[in-house]
């Protein structure tokens, strides 16, 4: 186990790392270490032998010995949370307890090449190790001898995230936050390569939402959806946006400041909004322009852009923040705590109520199986689809904080990490 001084270099400019070495030297070293690895213990021997044999037989590139050790450790020590086996192409969700911390790690799509890794850490040691005074960064890689990257929050999503490059057939995702804290997870990746579009969908700005939807569908007992949410505008969301713009027109709004992004969903949503605004006689303006009277901000971009842009506004001194008479309105897929908490209250059209029994079942199941993950509209939509649920007619909801005490210095925020809106509420306020 390396000491602090020997801790691998961390690339802090990128959340992507390359996987195992592929050169001959590594291959030789791997074979040399295989014998030593075999002596570690019965379980480890079995795992290492299995991995080495499998690699040879299938023609996959041999792996470094430390990778084999990690792989064996990961396969024997972690618990598969979703699904009974590791399956290539199916996001892998595993949990391992280490030093009073429960690490729940999601790897998607579990194919060779870049994979998005989500890390949720909960448990008694969580605060001490990850958020306390002696907290260390969480690093993610494939082995300790290869490059590790720091797992970082993604705007609009809960958890920590990193992108790692996994090999064909088998891979190991190593999560560590210091030399004495290493938590390996085995992943079966198979041989089917990802297309560039698939890589972009899983690891790009909308990757967190994609992983969230995929795991929610699996949690509901369904299959991984064919496409990520940001790859198309759902018909129901298009209807909700059209009606939302119509409501803005009926309320006398003059300007719609439209915030969108370049995703297929964002482009389609933008077109829907513009057409609806044209019909309602509303002017569509730049969201960064100084608002005129009766201006409403309508955000139809993805989680990342929405959270980032909204947070940038409220981070400014209050007198410098734009005054929008008609507030902030969000697209349905933006019901993510980390998005709605990036602004001081918003209106969002939804085809469900978070208090519906089905929505409660989703949020509570999520809390039970994937602790640390917050419920989201996109996750619930995938859950509901997998369960064969039916959307309700869209209504307007107010997503707002509703807490009443200043948090004292040193006490931190006490809001729930599992609520649809920690420290707040999502309440129906009107029809569409």
């Amino acid at each position, binding site marked *: 186990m390396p000491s602090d001084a020997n801790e691998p270099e961390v690339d802090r400019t990128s959340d992507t790392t390359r996987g195992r070495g592929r050169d001959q030297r590594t291959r030789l070293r791997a074979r040399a270490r295989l014998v030593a690895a075999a002596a570690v213990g019965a379980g480890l021997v079995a795992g290492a032998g299995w991995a080495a044999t499998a690699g040879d037989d299938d023609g996959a590139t041999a792996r470094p010995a430390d990778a084999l050790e990690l792989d064996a450790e990961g396969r024997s020590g972690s618990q598969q*949370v*979703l699904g009974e086996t590791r399956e290539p192409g199916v996001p892998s969700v595993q*949990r391992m307890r280490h030093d009073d911390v*429960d690490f729940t790690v999601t790897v998607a799509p579990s194919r060779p090449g870049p994979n998005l890794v989500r890390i949720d850490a*909960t*448990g008694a040691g*969580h*605060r001490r190790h990850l958020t306390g005074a002696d907290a260390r960064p969480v690093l993610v890689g494939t082995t300790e001898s290869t490059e590790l990257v720091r797992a970082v929050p993604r705007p609009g999503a809960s958890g920590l995230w990193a992108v790692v490059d996994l090999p064909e057939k088998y891979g190991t995702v190593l999560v560590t936050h210091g030399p004495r804290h290493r938590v390996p997870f085995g992943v079966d990746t198979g041989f089917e390569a990802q297309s560039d579009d698939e890589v972009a969908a899983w690891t790009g700005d909308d990757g967190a939402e994609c992983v969230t939807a995929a795991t929610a569908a699996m949690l509901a007992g369904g299959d991984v959806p064919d496409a990520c949410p940001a790859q198309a505008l759902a018909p129901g969301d298009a209807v909700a946006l059209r009606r939302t713009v119509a409501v803005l027109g009926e*309320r006398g709004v003059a300007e719609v400041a439209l915030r969108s992004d370049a995703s297929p969903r964002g482009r389609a949503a933008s077109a829907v909004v513009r057409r609806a605004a044209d019909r309602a006689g509303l002017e569509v303006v730049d969201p960064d322009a100084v608002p005129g009277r009766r201006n409403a901000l309508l955000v139809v971009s993805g989680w990342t852009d929405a959270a980032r842009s909204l947070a940038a506004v*409220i*981070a400014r001194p*209050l*007198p410098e*923040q734009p*005054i*929008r*008479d008609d*507030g*902030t309105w969000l697209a349905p897929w933006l019901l993510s705590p980390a998005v709605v*908490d990036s602004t*001081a*209250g918003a*209106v969002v059209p939804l085809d469900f109520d978070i*208090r519906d029994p089905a929505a*409660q079942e989703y*949020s*509570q*199941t999520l*809390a*039970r*199986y994937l*602790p*640390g993950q917050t419920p989201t509209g996109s996750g619930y939509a995938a859950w509901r689809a997998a369960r064969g649920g039916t959307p309700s007619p869209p209504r307007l909801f*107010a997503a*707002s*904080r*509703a*807490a*009443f*005490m*200043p948090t*004292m*210095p*040193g*006490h931190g*925020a*006490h*809001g*729930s*990490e*599992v*609520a649809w809106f*920690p*420290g*707040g*509420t999502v*309440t*129906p*306020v*009107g029809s569409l």
Partner: protein
Amino acid sequence: MRNLISLAPRGARGRRRLTLGAATLALVTGTVVATQTGALASLSDDADGPVGTSDSAGRLLVDLQDQLADLLGDDIVEQTTSILAGDGKEYWLKNHLDASALPTDVLQDLGLGEVVPQLPIGGGDSGGGVPDDGLRREYLVVWAGDNNILDKSGAELTTLPKTISPDLIGTKDLIGPDFFAVVDATKGSDTYGQVVNTATVGPLVENEPHHMQYIWHKGDNIFAGGLFTDVTYVVDTSELPKLTLKNVNLPTDTLCGSVPDAYWVTEDHKAYGTYMGGPDVPGPCVYSDGSVRLGNGFGGSPGELVRLDENGRTLYEAPATPETAETEMRCDNIPQLQLPTCANPHGVQAREDLDVLVTSDYNEPRNIILNPVAAPSSYLRRPTVRTWDISNPDEPRLKAVSFLPDGPRVGKVAHHEEPRAAMETTVTNLPANKGAFASTMQGGAIYYTPDITAEQPEWREVFDLTTSNKLVDPTSSFYGGGSNAGWTQTSLDDKYLYVAVVGRQPNGEDKGSPQYILKLDIQELVASGTSPQCTIDDEAEITAGGQEADCPTVHDTLKAPGGPHWGAFDNLELGDDGYYHETTDVNRIAYSNYFVARTGLNGDHRVCMVDVADDETLSLDTDFRQPGAVEDCIDFDRASWPHGDWGPAKPHSMIFVTADDDIR
């Protein structure tokens, strides 16, 4: 499982008898009872609204084994009342009466006499688990929220199951129903301090139950608000211990306000409600008087005052802010408004004889919790009190906005300055008096105005909680800022002022301030008429109390570990005629230790009873506790309730009530 013996409304006894007979026959013969009471469901003729009484048991399949198991150990009788609300949905209140805790005469008063023999409660030939003691019952109705997984942090949610199954969640953490707990508050009763009924509300969960009216009078319905759902529940108490849902006022019934906080019920049984948060949707809102204010949305600003009829229907929405900016002190709004306002009304009390109502502004509710991106402003805590003209009771009109003056104490943070966060206000009661008090939660001070009928009432600081903090615990960090004054209530004879002090939590070098019930003697101050001399304007008065002769003095304090936020007077006394009568000579109060869990000010979830002695001192009533409990008070952190094993609950407010037939 519990007994699923269901009840029909009065007038349907014949049908009920048949049904119960069928159920009994099924038990005896071992036949599975498929449906018990389909014939029981009936609609009331109540002209007040679409109130119905339905039989929940009729929907359920009950097999013999469950029935027998129930009969061995459960005595719960369920009854549901439901209404069809304006959104087309059914809302309900489901009683879970614990027959083992009720004497036969009470059961008979509820029309349950014929049910009793079916219950496993023994107690002689007439059933009843409690002997008929001849006492008419007084109840403490507590509005409580289910404490569940959403009130926890993720760190508490780490139990990993071995396998995945359809039934994933235990009921303890499951989001459960919020409820009214009906507690026997009858001194001398064998079931004193026992929860005899829990009436659960549905289908809305996560209401965050908050306030009811301050005091109950014969003929009043209960008005109970849910902060997060923006709903006011209106409940009929006439048949206590059973409760009946009369109406629900939905968010769309009060478009210009949100986050209902408190209620004041007037002599005509109608009510005023303070809606602390802004309009449901950001932008302009048209009030009942036709005027328009721009608001920044749900949970924002400005709030409003709502006039409700006796069944909770909205009669009038009145703007709490004038059409001009409020700028005397800093009033921040997030997001900003064109016209800044401090209008977030929280406390509310009225003097109908003076045609005046008073509200106090607490804060812009949604922006108080620490923002992860940018710290919120101290100036969201409001330093304002508003007086309203209610000469036309159904059309309240804002009369004056008063900014409470700053005091001599220098706050460690801006929102610890004396006037900040005017959570509560309370009027004097006697006809000769026109004064009112206000307390500030973060400011930790008490204010007084001698005349609320003035065009612009003059408020002055008359007490700093630093004084009483030091008295209660000289070893604490008795600095008054952030002492978190809550319930503030003048005694009904205008001699004393009660204040529930949650206290300030320890933090680093700050040892925190004590938790207690404060009782101030205000007789000299009230007697000073329109010329009070008391004012806290000198540093020495911060700790020593006001120097002027008419300043309030500490009459008594009662340590209240657990964090008391709310309280209520027992304004009912049992007369020689065996009936209850209203009194102004209050000899009991109740208080609760809960604020709002998600703020981190959670309390220990206990409801306590306090005796007021002849010398007006306070003592905890140690008899008021659950049977077998070793700790004082009613602990709402418990595994089981009459409505099931839903685990801990969060009691915010309470009120003393009797059945209509038991009060004269």
